């Protein structure tokens, strides 16, 4: 028993593997953090000197300011559209009695695997760069594209929760008590989904903030998001690139922490059922 104690906790080989994996995960982020406050970093293991000028330069840069704001509103719009479309759609898929609708749900789930972002991007370029549909570069198109990428993850979370809750029986109970459809949806289904909607929204926000491949192909000059302009930073000073990356990293970590807190809240509120 070299890797695992009887208690099921990792020991020995298991701990070493965990430490290596953690180092692999943390080292790049640590280097970026160090680089963002390092003075000069050229042909050395670590930068020389300590400075805050990279962040000052970043904050003063209008291109990055605009991209940051664009990322935020694209992200917010994506979340809102996902909620508006995703909640009723998840309900329809979870309650689907027709095999066709169930199949549609499964296809939606598989979209990110079956059609990677770069493929979707080429499709958008072909469809929206014509005279008939000259929308390539429009902000709303970026939002629409982000929705396409994020919606499957949003749906997966909600459909799983709906099935876990046994919402069909809850609805039958409400119906037997006299509730018409709209009351059942508003009084029973939606309140039960508050936690999973919050959790899925944070996931969508994290995906949207970091989305690069698809956005890089379809976002115009006026609506470039933060990851797109971040790419440019890598052609300049290393410290500036690191500082710009730290901002994105902070946003992703914030989303992950928020998601974790919401998930914990949901577990705590349901964990003692049964």
């Amino acid at each position, binding site marked *: 028993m070299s890797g695992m104690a009887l208690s099921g906790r990792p020991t020995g080989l298991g701990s070493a593997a965990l430490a290596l994996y953690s180092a692999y995960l943390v080292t790049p982020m640590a280097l970026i953090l160090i680089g963002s406050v390092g003075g000069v970093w050229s042909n050395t293991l670590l930068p020389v000197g300590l400075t805050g000028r990279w962040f000052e330069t970043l904050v003063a840069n209008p291109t990055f300011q605009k991209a940051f704001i664009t990322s935020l509103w694209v992200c917010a719009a994506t979340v809102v559209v996902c909620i508006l479309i995703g909640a009723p759609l998840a309900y329809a898929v979870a309650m689907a009695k027709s095999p066709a609708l169930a199949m549609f749900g499964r296809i939606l789930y598989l979209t990110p695997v079956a059609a990677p972002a770069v493929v979707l991007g080429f499709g958008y370029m072909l469809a929206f760069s014509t005279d008939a549909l000259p929308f390539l570069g429009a902000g709303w198109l970026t939002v629409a594209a982000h929705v396409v990428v994020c919606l499957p993850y949003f749906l997966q979370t909600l459909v799983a929760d709906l099935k876990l*809750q*046994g919402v069909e*029986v*809850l609805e*039958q*109970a*409400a*119906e*037997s*008590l*006299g*509730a*018409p459809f709209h*009351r059942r949806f508003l*009084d*029973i289904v939606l*309140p*039960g989904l*508050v936690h999973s909607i919050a959790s899925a929204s944070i996931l969508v926000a994290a995906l949207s903030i970091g989305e690069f491949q698809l956005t890089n192909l379809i976002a115009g000059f006026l609506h470039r998001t933060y990851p797109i302009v971040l790419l440019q930073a890598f052609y300049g000073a290393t410290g500036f690139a690191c500082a710009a990356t730290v901002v994105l990293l902070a946003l992703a970590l914030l989303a992950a922490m928020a998601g974790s807190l919401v998930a914990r809240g949901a577990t705590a*509120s*349901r964990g*003692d*059922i049964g």
Partner: protein
Amino acid sequence: MSVVLDQVSFAYPGAGAGVRDIALEIREGELLAVIGPSGCGKSTILKLIAGFLMPQSGRISMGGEDMTTVPPRKRDLGIVFQNYALFPHMTLAENVGYALKLRQVPSAEAGERVREALGMVGLGHLADRLPRSLSGGQQQRVALARALVFRPRALLLDEPLSALDATLRGEMRDEIARLQHLHGIATLHITHDQEEALSMAHRVAVMREGRILQVDTPEGLYARPANRAVAAFVGQANLFDGQVLDAVTVRTAIGDLACAAHAFPRGMAVTVLIRPEAIRPVEHANGPNRFTGHVTRDRFLGALRRFDFTLSSGLRLAIETESHVAPPGAIELPPAAVQVIATGHEGATRSVATKNENPAVSA
């Protein structure tokens, strides 16, 4: 108000399962239990009455009013679900008051009725709690209060005790029976637990393969099963294929049995039923309906004891006794305890006869 199913049939799309030609009446003030093995269609009957399924033929009426196509929300039926189906985000008071809110009952009156309903099930002091903080038995009581607070036309109970432990099940049986009697409401109780059905119901319907085999009082069902399937399903039973020799004798694999067979023509194939508790231990095998053998298995069941008694012929009988004394070496099947049942008039019954080849001990 009574609930009547008149020749109701329903088949699930793509599957043979469902119910066929169901004719059943739940009388006003009556608690009618439906029992049967898994997949026999008992829950389908509840769903048809509730309106969650629409019959493909037949008619469902309540108090004389045709409800066959009326949507569930307009049927005014109180339903208690197997897993209670309490709304997890609502307090007990909100759960119980939901039907009143939908009916726009003035808040003062609704509050009073909710308090009364929760008090009736002994949970008035927990009105502001959420369902998840309650035990299974308490949740079941809330579900009952919720189903009764709006004064429904009938009450439907879908295996309401199956999720509870044995002790709590006993308590809740009494509680449900008390509330049903208090409200005098027509009640359909779906269960797979025959003890639950026999102890609670005024009448019991036994189902198999989508059909009702018999509807009778618990005593009638046990004492006078209509066919082999009912005899096998209700209580413990020793079942044998037989042939009528004359008005007082039936030939079976264990021997010729003296019994009342005058209702059947000579030569007719019949089923012989002997309840385990009716078999008497005796000292010797001299006399009619007496056989020698020995105990091959002994099970202690608390108040009684069950023995497997293997006859000299190799056939086996189940014997139950409250005396806890094993048969010494011979048994008697009193003629009055040997029931003769017609065999082969129904497919479902025949399939049981095939399954339980002699000797048969069915529970």
